[in-house]
């Protein structure tokens, strides 16, 4: 049973053997005692330049009755293998309401993802899990079917839909893997109500353990690293880092925070609001001023979207830059990340696997003039709105996780331990 053992986001099409996927290796030796699983089916959202893959994807979506989201705008040639969507054309416009195929909670979730209303890896995972709880409680097993198999098949089109709305994040991928495993492990003699109750319980546990309690554990370890008189630099809005700073402030540590922000998302303003509300004294700058402000800084706290198996930190675009400049000024960089975001993928640059956001976000009107208003008409002009980038492990001094404080290079060790637990 060629199951997804890695954190790849694509599920196997039901009843279809994988044909000519460009997989990097074939060997699948899933021995329960040694974890040498190397199934590497490339996710489709980074193979947009291959017409065969696109055709296959279109067929799959048609079968699942999910509309396909189209590319928008001129794509920079270095990124022709990635998708680029426009926020003004959400997928839900092509759906009929009420949709017969997709549960309304999922439709709402998809719309929230694509419009950026729910953003941030923790928020997206929690929203996903809540939506799945809704789906599970509304589910009824059809006759002649087993809950453990049918429910998994029911979830597949939902996941494709969410993937079309916005490519899944690593944390969401791990959460989905967990749910699928729990569902398949439901013994067949369970009654439907009991099964559903158990599943809902599992999801609650997951959220409680992996997200909420992990945040508490990380906050406890991080507070040892925050001293009185510290000047802490944070970038963008990481729910975990904000939580840590608020906890430290409540425990009575005296520090001030510098919030660095970047266009076009300007997420730092949200972090600024939360910190100022708590009463922490803050400074606010844009990322281009970071070399001006760094001499004042004593520590840098960064959040992560995912931690890759080769020690690279995948996070919001701009994080690697901050780590680079901090290294040049000899300021320690600490990354805070829960273990459920650890990912088995490896990546060395920010090109091969990334997300392209709506390019129109870069357009800005200053003093009544919009320079890039008609950028689509200009034949050789491209706008690039990257979402993620990878930070090399030599820029990061410490990773604080719920399992303790580890160096960046210990991620595969944690993954190995986790996988042994799961199996």
């Amino acid at each position, binding site marked *: 049973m060629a199951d997804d053992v890695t954190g790849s986001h694509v599920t196997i099409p039901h009843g279809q053997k994988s044909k000519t996927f460009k997989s990097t290796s074939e060997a699948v030796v899933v021995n329960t005692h040694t974890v040498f699983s190397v199934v590497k089916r490339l996710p489709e959202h980074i193979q947009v330049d291959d017409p065969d893959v696109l055709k296959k994807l279109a067929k799959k979506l048609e079968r699942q009755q999910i509309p396909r989201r189209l590319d928008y705008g001129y794509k920079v040639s*270095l990124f022709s293998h990635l998708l680029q969507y426009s926020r003004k054309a959400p997928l839900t416009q092509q759906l009929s309401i009420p949709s017969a195929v997709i549960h309304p909670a999922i439709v709402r979730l998809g719309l929230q993802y694509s419009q950026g209303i729910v953003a941030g890896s923790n928020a997206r995972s929690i929203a996903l899990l809540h939506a799945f709880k809704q789906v599970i409680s509304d589910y009824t097993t059809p006759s002649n079917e087993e809950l453990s198999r049918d429910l998994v098949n029911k979830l597949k089109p939902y996941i494709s839909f969410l993937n079309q709305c916005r490519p899944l994040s690593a944390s969401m991928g791990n959460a989905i893997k967990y749910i699928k495993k729990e569902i398949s492990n439901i013994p067949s003699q369970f009654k439907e109500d009991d099964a559903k109750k158990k599943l809902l319980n599992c999801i609650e546990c997951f959220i409680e353990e992996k997200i909420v309690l992990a945040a508490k554990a990380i906050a406890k370890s991080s507070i040892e690293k925050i001293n009185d008189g510290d000047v802490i630099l944070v970038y963008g809005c990481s729910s975990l880092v904000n939580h840590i700073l608020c906890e430290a402030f409540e425990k009575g540590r005296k520090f001030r925070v510098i919030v660095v922000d970047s266009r076009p998302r300007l997420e730092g303003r949200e972090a600024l609001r939360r910190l100022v509300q708590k009463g922490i004294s803050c400074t606010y700058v844009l990322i281009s001023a970071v070399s001006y402000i760094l001499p004042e800084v004593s520590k840098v706290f960064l959040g992560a979207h995912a931690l890759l198996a080769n020690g690279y930190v995948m996070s919001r675009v*701009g994080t690697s830059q901050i780590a680079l*400049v901090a290294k040049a000024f000899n300021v320690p960089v600490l990354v805070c990340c829960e273990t459920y975001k650890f990912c088995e993928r490896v990546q060395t640059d920010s*090109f091969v696997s990334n997300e392209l956001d709506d390019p129109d976000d*870069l357009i800005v009107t200053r003093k009544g003039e919009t320079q890039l208003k008609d950028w689509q008409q200009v034949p050789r002009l491209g706008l*690039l709105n990257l979402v993620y980038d990878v930070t090399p492990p030599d820029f990061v001094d410490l990773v604080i996780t719920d399992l303790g404080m580890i160096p960046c290079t210990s991620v595969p060790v944690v993954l190995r331990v986790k996988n042994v637990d799961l199996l």
Partner: protein
Amino acid sequence: HKITSSCKHEATLSSTNQKAACSRSPGTMPGPYRETDLTEKVEAFLSDLKRGGSGTGPLRGSAETARETTALLRRITAQVRWSSAGDLMEVIRKEGRRMSAAQPSETTVGNMIRRVLKIIREEYARSRGSSEEADQQESLHKLLTSGGLSEENFRQYFTALKANVIEAINELLTELEGTTDNIAMQALEHIHSNEVIMTIGRSRTVEAFLKDAARKRKFHVIVAECAPFCQGHEMATSLSKDGIETTVITDAAIFAVMSRVNKVIIGTQTVLANGGLRAVNGTHTLALAAKHHSTPLIVCAPMFKLSPQFPNEEDTFHKFVSPHEVLPFTEGEILSKVNVHCPVFDYVPPELITLFISNIGGHAPSYIYRLMSELYHPEDHEL
């Protein structure tokens, strides 16, 4: 305190105006009609300078500022009554101090004044007949063997001095007019085909440089937009209209895309005496990213941007503009509780720079001190 000193100067000017009819002491501004014309021009220039420093980029480019300053200095040389080189230098120094004080970050003004002062010294020395070399920098050996410096007080009167000085200033003006073209002419030596070049913000010199190369070669340019003023957008539209394949990226993506970049070509506001730069903010990050990937960093800077200042004056190096560009007034509830900074310039140390391209050719950053000693006289470093 700077404003009051210029007011005092105003007062002395008007009082000398009244005394003009009776006595004419050397070093004062000329008679009533010509005086108001010149003063008007100087005042207009000063107010232009003051207004143009809002940080969104000056109202005029640095080349224009340099030309206007030099033209103004030529006018002062022509119209002010002076009898010896020393008087002329005093007048120019006084006016120069006012001009630099109007917009301290616009260093081209100070540079042009020092150039003109050097021209006056040279012309004086030539008129006196002494060789130029003798008056050059005193080496330690010369100090020991010459037995004390000869006091050079520039008090001798030469009839042809005025004409010579004005001619030399004209030469300087011609040189200034050709700087951008001279730099752009070197473009093909540095850019090959299918390159990916990165730049930041908007520099007219770099724009001319890239457009000149694009006439013969095909390459790709990535422009970092340089928030919050986003001058990069203007640069990108201008380059793409000329047929160059351009991409606009945000400042946050500089390190992310740097691995695919072959060269980084930037302009700068000032080249400092140690070979470092005072450039638009975000340039230091760009330079660090380029160093990390071992990508060459090329700075296109004409000679009039070379300034004898060093970067160690902490309080005068940076310039800040209104923070509402960074955090607008719409964020009213938190504005009062937050410190917001909006610096305009960045310091880039000379170790991160690979090459300077100026109108007289290419130089390494370690050679800048020598160029500076040829352009300016050490006594003029402090105006």
